[in-house]
């Protein structure tokens, strides 16, 4: 299951998981809506390896500002607390998985 994150639960999620993918999105964003089912598939495929979360940037602007997000969807990736990427824009599942496996 994709975990819904907020400004207040974001850091804890990264600290508690070795490899993390966080989908930063907003409800009015069409590409974000197209990416949502792909993120769910990534979570199902990599359940044992990657913790997957999503963060509504409209309601959680602190994280968006902290990471300088100015285009959505943006996927933030963390391995043992270190940030990789980010991946910006809509992309196929295979590309997301390939990137995750390469960090």
């Amino acid at each position: 299951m994709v975990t819904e994150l907020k400004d207040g639960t974001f850091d804890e999620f990264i600290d508690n998981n070795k490899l993390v993918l966080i989908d930063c999105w907003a409800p009015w964003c069409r590409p974000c809506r197209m990416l949502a089912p792909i993120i769910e598939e990534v979570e199902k495929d990599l359940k044992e390896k990657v913790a997957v979360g999503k963060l509504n940037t409209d309601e959680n602007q602190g994280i968006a500002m902290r990471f300088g997000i100015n285009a959505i969807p943006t996927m933030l990736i963390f391995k043992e607390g270190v940030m990789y990427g980010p991946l910006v824009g809509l992309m196929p599942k295979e590309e997301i998985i390939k990137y995750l496996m390469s960090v």
Partner: protein
Amino acid sequence: MPDIMIIGTGPAGLQAAIHAARAKAATVMIGKLRNSAMYGTKVENYFGIKGEADGTGMLSAGLAQAMSSGAEHTDENVISMEYDGGSFKATTENGNTVTAKAVILAPGISRMKLNIPGEKELFGKGVSYCAACDCNFYKGKRIAVIGDESEAAASAELMTSYASKVFWVTKDAKASDMMIRKAKDAGAVMIDGKVSGITGKDRVTGLTFSDAPAIELDGVFIELGARSSSDLAMDIGIMPNTDGTIKVNERCETSVKGVYACGDVTGRPWQIAKAVGQGATAGINAAAYVKGEKNVR
């Protein structure tokens, strides 16, 4: 109420209209001929052509042919669509609405990128292709919207509610007068210039022109063409593929009953021959659908 509305007047949409109208379905085509990828080109690889054929001339002849078959034409871009469970409604850039029992989507694939220096490198660092997605990140900032059609006009107007300064860069604004006026009235400043590059190292800092002075900016929104086929499809409940194409079956039916798609929007090959083939299939099957007949392949 028309039986069928066709979004797009390229080879797929026109061929669909010819078949639907000849099957006695009341048909309305919505779109501008110049938005077709065939407009202004020379055609060499289509059946029955000796040497080169004029793409614009073929489109004009196709439109006349569809209209002589009984189809009507609205020479505007569609900016939004709705589905209420019974009928489909399209709203055009002049605020006109068309309601029909079935829809054939033939909008083509929109060109999204300008391919200018700095564009690829600064994507996500101040370069955006979706004002509606990213407007919130540019509160109080200086931005430019680049594009000539309705999507650029709508984005420029939208951004005036967020940014402190909005430039609309257009060499030849082709959006409707109403949309241009709304963007200007909202405070967007029009720049008549040819963009040559986006500047900045880690963040967008400005825009350069080949025929006008450079401007300093925090963000650049590239909004080419009319509203994208993906957006229109999602308005009526179809989830496009990540590349913007729409999945259809052998009858050109989409995942939503009563909605058909044909031409470039269904994916490669981007060829006139494939577009007219699918257009014929979509037109025949949509006409059979609105008449309650069993679908014909």
